[in-house]
Structure formats: structure tokens, C-alpha cells
């Protein structure tokens, strides 16, 4: 599946297209090419002013400006509202920025689960290393609880052992819903944007 298949593409006049091609080339494609990174324009759309949910046969996608990205995660302490990006695409985006790539807009596209409905959060899987350590931790806790429960059951014949709750399998989170980062270049006069794919990844 390509991004153009899920973006609502518009067909503006030839003049608008020419201006946008020129601006996209000078602001995005050329600086990236000089750094050895080949970027791919993905299409023209009207300038969106709010997040867009696109339902296609390839799945449901949510496009949002990075300042309103729904995956910006709140956490304990001072690190608030950060958008998680895997290291490799993050390094590529830094390289693009260092190369002088300056799109007018940066939007993120998130593939959504089939069951997603308006108001639901956008799932971001826990990093693989942490997921694996969570699974190990759950196994150890389960084993320890079982041993303690048996010990308590032996100690207290009346059955004062801790009730062993039914064990749920660890949620399989690495669902592989792919996010994309799009750089948009706007036309100076008409509300049309030319989008370029800056980064794309699958959650591990």
C-alpha cells in the first residue's frame, strides 16, 4: 500500500502544480538529495486545518499536524507530550533537518486498528525491549506467586492462601500499525499542499 492510496488527492491547475513542484524541490527534495537522501513526493491535497480521518479499503488512517498529534505521550515527571519515534527514522529526520529540509508543515499519519472509532486513542506499542522485560517480569511474578500460594496453602490448612487470579496472556502489542511523517509545502496563494514522505516505520 502507498501513501497516495490513502491521501485525499486533489488536482489543481497546471500553474499551481508548477509552483508547488518548484517550492517542493527547493525546500525539501534538493537539500535532501545533496545529503544523499532521496525523498518521494506523494501527492497534492487541499490544506487541512484539522486532523483528518481517512477510511479506505487499505485501512483507516488518521492524519494530524505534529503539534496536535494524538500519540504525544504524557508521562510522569517533566517529559510531557512527546511524540515517540523509533531511533532510525528519528535519525533520518534529524539528518534531513540538518541538510536544510524545511517543509511548511509536518503532519503525521497513523494507521488505526479496524475497531477504532472517533474519540479512541491512537495505540503506540510499548518498545520491544520493555515489552520483553515485562513478559519476563510477569513470568517471574507468576512463578513466585504460585510458590508462595502453595507455601501458604500448606501452612494454613484452612486455606488462607492468596487467591491465585486467572492469568491473562500478555497483550500482544506489536501490531505493526505503520505511522508516517509527511512534510508539506504550501502554495503561496491557494490552499493546496504538496506532501513528501519524510519518514515511515513499522512499530516493532
Amino acid at each position, binding site marked *: 500500500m502507498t501513501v497516495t492510496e490513502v491521501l485525499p488527492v486533489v488536482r489543481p491547475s497546471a500553474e499551481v502544480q508548477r509552483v508547488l513542484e518548484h517550492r517542493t524541490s527547493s525546500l525539501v527534495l534538493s537539500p535532501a538529495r545533496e545529503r544523499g537522501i532521496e525523498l518521494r513526493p506523494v501527492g497534492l491535497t*487541499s*490544506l*487541512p*486545518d484539522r486532523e483528518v480521518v481517512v477510511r479506505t479499503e487499505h485501512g483507516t488512517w488518521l492524519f494530524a499536524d*505534529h503539534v496536535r498529534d494524538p500519540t504525544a*505521550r*504524557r*508521562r*510522569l515527571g517533566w*517529559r510531557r*507530550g*512527546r*511524540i*515517540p*519515534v*523509533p*531511533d532510525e527514522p*528519528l535519525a533520518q*529526520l*534529524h539528518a*534531513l*533537518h540538518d541538510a536544510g*529540509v*524545511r*517543509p*511548511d*508543515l*509536518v503532519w503525521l499519519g497513523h494507521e488505526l486498528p479496524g475497531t477504532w472509532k472517533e474519540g479512541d486513542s491512537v495505540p*503506540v*506499542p*510499548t*518498545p520491544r*525491549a*520493555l*515489552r520483553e*522485560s*515485562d513478559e519476563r*517480569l*510477569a513470568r517471574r*511474578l507468576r512463578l*513466585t*506467586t504460585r510458590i*508462595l500460594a502453595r507455601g*501458604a496453602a500448606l*501452612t*494454613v490448612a*484452612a486455606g*488462607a492462601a*492468596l487467591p491465585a*487470579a486467572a*492469568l*491473562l496472556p*500478555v*497483550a500482544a502489542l506489536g501490531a505493526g500499525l505503520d505511522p508516517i*511523517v509527511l512534510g508539506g509545502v*504550501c*502554495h*503561496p496563494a491557494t490552499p493546496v499542499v504538496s506532501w513528501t514522505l*519524510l519518514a515511515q516505520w513499522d*512499530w516493532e
Partner: protein
Amino acid sequence: MSFPPNRLAGSGHRQQHPSPLGAFLRSATSHQRAGGPIPIDVLRYGIIGSAVVILTGVVALLLPPAPDLSSSGFFLLLGRQVSWIVEFAKHLAVPAIGCGLALLCLDLYLMRAPSGRYSRAFVVGQAVAGGALGALGAVFLALVALNMVLWVVIVTAILVVVVGTLAALLSGE
């Protein structure tokens, strides 16, 4: 769909501000280091731990004072140890209930908020605390059960002796 004029390209306005890509990179964080919500499979051990801590605290408050227990005559064996346990649990009860409730609230937050390895250690700590107090409760219950069994044995023995004596007396006549 409306088009905010300050978002249109070509204006000098954009030049005075950091580029959107730079702003995005400042708000981005490494996914590998961003952490994630603690899975319920792990978190429930913390929740159970806190629940055990609260339950032990409440039971300790409901129990009669330690001297009353040891002087009640019920504990034929290890009565002093039982009164130590009860006294210790009573001293621990109020802070344990407070901490347990606070930690339960924190668990509800951790269920949704992304967090790193330290919060996992915190959940394990909760489970250990619950296990420790649960073990204390189990020892207390074991001593109660032991003494109860002793009483049952004694009462049964007395009944056997009484019934045997009566039977001997009746058969002698």
C-alpha cells in the same frame, strides 16, 4: 474546510519562527526510551499486593489488643508470638492502609501512562510488600489454626474420657 491565512506558504511570518520540522524534532522522543504503560499482567501483582497490605491493616485494627489476646487463654501454644505479631501489625496498620490506598491510586495512573523500568520496580516492590504482610497474616492464621486444632483435640479427648467413664459406670451397675 477553512484555511487559516497564517498557515499559507510564502509569508514572512514563517521565516521568523523555527521550522516545523525543527519544532517536530524538539517534540519527538526516542520510542525505545519513551517507555510504555505497564501491562495489566504485571500491574495486577502490584494491585493485589496493595490490596493485601490494606486488608492486613484493616484486620489488624479489628483484632483485640495484643495483651487481651495473649491473656484470653485461647492460645495454648506460642501465645506470646501471636501477641508480638498482632502488636506489630497494629503498629503498622494505619500507615499500611494509607500507603496501600495511595499506591492503588498510582496503579490506576500507571495502567495508562507510559513509564519506564523504574515504575516496574515500584510495582514489584508493591507485590513484595503485599507478599510480606500476607506472609505475616498467614503465620498469624497458622498459629490460630494450630491452637484451634489443639483445642479440638483437647475437647475431643475430654469427651472421650467422659463418655468412657460414663460407659464404664453404666456397665458396672
